[in-house]
Structures are given as C-alpha cells and as structure tokens.
C-alpha cells in the first residue's frame, strides 16, 4: 500500500520547514495572482462595476479639487480689501498724522494713507454733488480718515476682526469699517460648498460600499458549490474570505484609475472657460489636476472602501452558506 505507507522521512523534511509567516505570505501571493486571473474571466461585468465605482468617486473628488483651489482664489481676491479708520471730530491734523504713522509700524499693516478732514470734505464735495449744501455749513462734518491695507498674512476674516477690535480701543479713533460683508459671504459660500461636498462624499462612499458589497455577494453566490466543498474539506473562514477581499482590492484599484482619468479629462475640459473667468477678475488662477498626493489618496480611499465593502458582504454571506 504504497500511498499511505510512503515513509514520512524524505517527505516530512520537505513539507515541514516553511514558517507560518512565510506560508501566509505565499498564500497571499497565490490569491493575489489567482484573483487577478479571475478578473479577466468576466471583463465586461467587472468593467461596469469599476465604472460605477469610478463615477461615485470622481464626483466628490472633483468637487473637493475645485473647492481646495477655490479657497486659494478667495484669498487672492481678499487682497483688495482694506480698512477705513475714522478719527473723532476733535482730533487735530497733527494728532491724526501721528496716529497714522504709529499704525504704519504695526506688523499686520502693509500700508496706510492719511486723509485729513479738509481733504475728505473736498473729495466728498466733488464726488457727491452736494457742493451747495456742504458749502453752507459752518463746520466740517467729516472726520479725518486713515485707509489701511493689511498685510497678506492678516487677510483672513479672523485676523481682520482682531485688528479692527484693537483699533477701536485706541484713543481718537471713532469708527473702524471693514468691508467684511462680502468676505463673510464668500466664507459662508465656501463653507456651504464644503459641507455639501462632504455630505455628498459620505453618501457616495456609502454607495461604493453597497456596490462593491453587492458585486461580491453575487460572486459568492456564483461560487456557492465551491465554497460548500471548501467548507466540507476544512477550509477556514480566513481562507474563504481572502479571494473576495482581493477581488475588492482590484475593484478599488481599477475604479480609482478610471476615476483619475475622468478627473484629469474634466480638468482639461474646464481649463479654458475657468481661465477666462479668472482673468476677468484679474487673477492668474488656474485649475490644476490632481497632484501625486491627491492621486495617492484617491487610490487609497477607493481601495479601502472597496475592501471594506467586500469584507462586510463576505462576513454576512459566508455565514449563510453552510453545508447541510
């Protein structure tokens, strides 16, 4: 009875030495290859899954790309904002100029220009057309004004607010005006779009989980016989799970690549109109494609979502298939 009697001596020496970690590595390598080969048995249905996942990824990714670059644009546009400081009426011209020079030394102020009460009146007369009424006044009702241009570093709404508050506390300063309304509006707009994008990304991530989960569920169903036999001859859950997790990984990888292509095509398509739009605001802003960091996080997100989706489906589905 040669088969069972085969002496274990030369046999055992070859089967035993492989260490557990080495064996696990080899098994993973085998599954990586076999799951890759399996991909190309049903290329069309896989391609459809990849496209679905890719679209679900490309949409929020495009919005995030646009947003992250639009906030730069917002900062550029901020540069036109300045602060008007109105001095109290009883401030003399000398005092006003002194305050102006003091302000110019602040680190958060790039440039100041002083406008005396008399100059202000002349400017107002010529621009308002109320020359007659203004001439009949015995006293100049206008205060002296200091126009402040903040440095680039202190252009954020928060820094501007802080500077305004500090200025208001100074002697002889009556009123400080910042054109904050549009800045606030821009901020709210950005915040709204940001939150919209995040909610969309969250929903679509859930969509990716469901799509991959459902695909894997169908794969498992189609390999039901195989799974039953493997369970009967003693395959562990980890062994059974592995090919499906790798299938999830491949789905994630290919979907990310397709999403990347969609994104870059979109950037090329939008480039020209966005450039004209930016130029009309005297900005040299340009929409950039994904950099390598962005590309990597796209791939990482896609792969982890897909593997997670596959894992959730496998855990549920494998328990439903038990030999009876």
């Amino acid at each position: 009875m040669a088969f069972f009697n085969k002496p274990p001596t030369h046999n055992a020496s070859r089967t035993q030495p492989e260490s557990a970690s080495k064996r696990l590595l080899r098994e993973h390598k085998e599954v990586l290859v076999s799951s890759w080969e399996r991909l190309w048995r049903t290329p069309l249905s896989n391609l459809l899954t990849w496209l679905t996942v890719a679209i679900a990824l490309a949409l929020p990714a495009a919005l995030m790309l646009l947003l992250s670059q639009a906030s730069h644009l917002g900062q550029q546009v901020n540069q036109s904002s300045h602060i008007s400081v109105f001095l109290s009426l009883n401030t003399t011209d000398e005092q006003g100029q002194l305050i102006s020079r003091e302000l110019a030394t602040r680190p958060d102020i790039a440039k100041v220009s002083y406008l005396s009460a008399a100059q202000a009146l002349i400017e107002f007369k010529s621009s308002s057309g109320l020359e007659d009424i203004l001439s009949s006044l015995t006293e100049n009702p206008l205060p002296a004004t200091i126009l402040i241009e903040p440095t680039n570093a202190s252009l954020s709404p928060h820094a501007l607010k802080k500077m305004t508050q500090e200025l208001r506390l100074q002697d002889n300063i009556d009123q400080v005006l910042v054109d904050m309304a549009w800045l606030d509006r821009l901020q709210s707009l950005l915040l709204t779009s940001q939150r919209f994008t995040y909610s969309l990304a969250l929903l679509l991530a859930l969509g990716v989980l469901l799509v991959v989960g459902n695909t894997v569920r169908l794969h498992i169903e189609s390999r039901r016989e195989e799974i039953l036999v493997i369970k009967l001859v003693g395959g562990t859950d980890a062994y059974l799970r592995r090919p499906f997790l790798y299938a999830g990984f491949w789905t994630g990888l290919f979907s990310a690549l397709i999403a990347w292509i969609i994104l870059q095509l979109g950037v090329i398509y939008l480039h020209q109109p966005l450039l004209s739009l930016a130029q009309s605001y005297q900005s040299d802003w340009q929409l950039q494609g994904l950099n390598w960091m962005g590309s990597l996080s796209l791939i990482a997100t896609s792969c982890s979502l897909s593997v997670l989706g596959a894992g959730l489906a496998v855990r549920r589905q494998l328990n439903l298939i038990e030999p009876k």
Partner: protein
Amino acid sequence: MISFEQVSKKYHEKTALVNANFHLQRGAMAFLTGHSGAGKSTLLKLIMLMERPTSGKVIVDRQDLSQLSRAQVPAHRRKIGLVFQNHQLLMDYSVFDNVALPLKISGYNERDSGRRVRAALDKVGLLDKERLSPQTLSTGEQQRVGIARAIVNKPKLILADEPTGNLDPDLSAEIMRLFQQFNQVGVSILIASHDLELIQRLPHPVIALNQGRISGSASLMGH
C-alpha cells in the same frame, strides 16, 4: 476512532437519531445501513460537525466534539476524508485541482502538493486524467476522483456517504476494494450504504439504523 454516547438529534418536531451508542475502533472498517431517512446522513453530519447533537456526546479521535468552537471546526474536518454520493467535484476545476483542494487549504506548497496529488490519483488509477475536467469522466471515474480527494491529506478517518450509490455492481465492488486497501494500512473507515447485497459479501461489521435507532451490533472491533 468514533464514539457515540447516548446521542440524539431532533430537527424541530422530527427525531432523526435516538440514543445512539456505538464505538468504531481505530483502524476498523464498518458499514452504516438503513432506509433513507433512517438517520445515516444525520450520523455522518454529526461526525463532520455539520450538525450538533441535541443531547449526548460524540467523540472523534479522542476529541469530544462538543468542546470544539465554530473556529475549530475546519481543523477538525481536515482530519477526516469525506466521500460523497454525488462526488461533489467542482466542474470548473481540473481533476488535479479538485484533488489538490484539501492540500491547498492546508497550505501545502505547489511541489509537495503536486507529489501528493499524483500519488493519490495513481492510487485510484486516474493519473493520466489529471488535466481533464471532471465533466469528461465517467461516473465511476468521478467517484474515484472524489476518493482521491478524500485520501490526499492522508486522513486517519474516512467517511463515505453512499459512495456506490450511482454505480453498477462491478464498479461498486471496485470502489469497495479501494476502501479495503486503505483500511489495510490502518485508516478507519465508516461507509454509509443501503447496498445490502454488496455489504453482506464483505467481512465488515454493520451498524443498522432503523427510524433513528441503532438495531445492529453496537461495538465494532478492529481486526
């Protein structure tokens, strides 16, 4: 090798096995007979841990099966070679890959696995068919592939569920001769079969099941 102590199994209202007691000694070969529905499949399922008993104790290879958790079931099954009536071969695997499956699950590398698979196929006389799909084989050949898969891991125990169910008498006798050969080198074998004519011609003890009760000899000696 296998001990049943007061084992009962109920499915909802239906009782499949009642107070079953038997002992299959290490190295013994025995038949399990009975009409369909007499409890043969239930008994095999309890040994394979496809089912758990409602009451009583099942011991396989000195291991009380009730002590095994769900996670330990695969390791238990790997110790047993299982032969099915409908052979349960995977038609999109080659003959070779079907037989190699238990080894792959146990983590054998390709070289060791290849050697063992060929030895097992040689044993059942199908070495020249390793590259074929099981679909192209005759029923008898398919059953032999199933047997090769059951022995490839060199188990101490082989369970067979109606292994000759679909075969003509000549092929059935041939399959039984194979089991006897394995038994001669010390493998314990339990074969569920209703082919009484064939069983009576062979010198092995019989456990007869009737409506969930064992009516034949209860303790089975090895030779």
